[in-house]
């Protein structure tokens, strides 16, 4: 997904002279093909996130579309005020490509795991918050970013994530994707949790429960129309996210239901409000948090 995202920046740079890449201090050779083809639109500016966001804002004020890339925790927490003031207050078309959303960097510990990125980005006016499910959807999504007038936060998965989105999807920011129609219960997911929810739906089918999956590649703007229709049609909603239970997709859905006075029962499956205190792999930590297909299915059966 990350490689696809960066490859697409290069592709967009070929299509549009306004596209610029700005990295901090990425792994050696990152996006080398673009650096060679467009050396004047490729910036690698060191471990200085605050300055880089300002630089991207200045470029955007004068007509460029900067795609900024570094690790998710650093592009959010480290330079939050620059993101808020330089990008969101000025409402500039800067894209923040965040490596390792959620638990991807499990072996590297809590400084590198972005478990509150969706919450803090979602709280900023003008910011779009996105987490696609797979590399194929990433291609379609990146094309849609070119002419979006506002800043976009782009959460990346680990890479090699199972492809679950349909090839004929027309990507629109703010639109959800129904991956499986729901009857008894509807999973509402974002990012790579779509595949886990589909796995859980298969397990629930063995128990005679028909579960569907609505995938939200954009957590903000939220697809209110599809969600409200779903909440009026199915008896139960279950949000599933690789994120703190505070402020992310589950919170967004809860806010929508409350604001529309809908009594549909909502179960929020997410990470606990604590820093991850184990290593291993993303899969391992998801399993510990009950966010693997089996854990998700069990939570539904228990609720």
């Amino acid at each position: 997904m990350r490689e696809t995202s960066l490859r697409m920046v290069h592709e967009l740079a070929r299509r549009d002279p306004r596209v610029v890449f700005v990295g901090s201090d990425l792994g050696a050779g990152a996006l080398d093909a673009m650096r060679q083809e467009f050396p004047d639109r490729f910036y690698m500016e060191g471990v200085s996130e605050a300055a880089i966001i300002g630089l991207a804002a200045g470029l955007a004020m004068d007509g460029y579309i900067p795609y900024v890339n570094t690790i998710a925790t650093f592009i959010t927490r480290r330079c939050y005020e620059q993101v808020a003031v330089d990008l969101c207050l000025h409402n500039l078309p800067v894209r923040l490509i965040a490596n390792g959303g959620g638990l991807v960097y499990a072996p590297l510990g809590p400084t590198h795991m972005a478990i509150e990125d969706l919450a803090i980005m979602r709280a900023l006016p003008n910011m779009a918050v996105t987490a696609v499910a797979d590399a194929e959807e990433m291609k379609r999504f990146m094309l849609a970013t070119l002419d979006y007038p506002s800043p976009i936060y782009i959460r990346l998965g680990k890479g090699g994530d199972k492809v679950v989105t349909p090839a004929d999807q027309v990507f629109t920011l703010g639109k959800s994707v129904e991956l499986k129609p729901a009857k008894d219960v509807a999973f509402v997911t974002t990012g790579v949790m779509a595949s886990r929810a589909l796995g859980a739906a298969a397990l629930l089918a063995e128990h005679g429960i028909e579960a569907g999956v609505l995938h939200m590649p954009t957590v903000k703007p939220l697809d209110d129309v599809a969600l409200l229709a779903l909440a009026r049609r199915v008896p139960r909603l279950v949000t599933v996210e690789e994120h703190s239970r505070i402020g992310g997709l589950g919170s967004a859905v809860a806010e929508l239901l409350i604001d529309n006075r809908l009594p549909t029962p909502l179960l929020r499956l997410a990470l606990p409000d604590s820093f991850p205190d184990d290593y291993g792999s993303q899969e391992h930590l998801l399993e510990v948090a009950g966010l693997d297909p089996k854990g998700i299915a069990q939570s539904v059966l228990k609720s």
Partner: protein
Amino acid sequence: MVIDALDGGGRGHVGAALSIIEIVRVLYDDVLKVRPSEPRWPDRDRFILSKGHGCLGLYAMLADKGFFDRSEIAQQCRPGALLGGHPEIRTPGVEASTGALGHGLGIGVGMALAARMQKRNSRVFVLTGDGELNEGSVWESALIASKHALSNLCLIVDYNKMQSYGRVADILPLEPLGAKFEAFGFGVSEVDGHDVAALRQVFAAPGTPNRPRAVICHTVKGRGIPICEHNASWHHKAKLAPEQVAELRHALAAT
């Protein structure tokens, strides 16, 4: 006009505005290529007031140049006003919304790079405070400006030696400031920031080739009004009594 704004809005960063008056005067009179009737003219020079709390000085100059009507000045900070307690891009002539410190130089670096890529002759001027140089983001941006040899970028430091709580020398000393910018790869000039002729001369002189510029302006916080000068308690004032405003006007008239 600064005192009119204080009087009308009932508040403002007085000292911070008065220390930059001559700097913005010289910039807008003699240095910047701008068009008040066409504020977004692409080939203009950019001026970012990174120390956004000095905005009363900038507003007075923009009004004087005709970017907006002078009657807006007395409305600052009121409901529905064009002018707030920090500059925002909705005001004609304001290039970036500032107020949070340490943002202007990063944005200026991006604008200077954009000018180079677009082969425009636009220059970018960023005015920071001295207390603002406490922010690490300024120094990150200074490294990047130097790396890219941004000779079209000029950092101006309003070095009035006072920050909000007290003397810069006590809160977080900056000396040797000129040497710091030299070490960061800037061509450095130091000037009396209230000496109009000296300021004109500095900005008219060619910079060092392939280096960003730093012009360190030695200034006096609250310049021109004896009760404000060098006085940290005049960094920001709210709830000014009519007698205080009268006192300010009287002091200014006497100088």
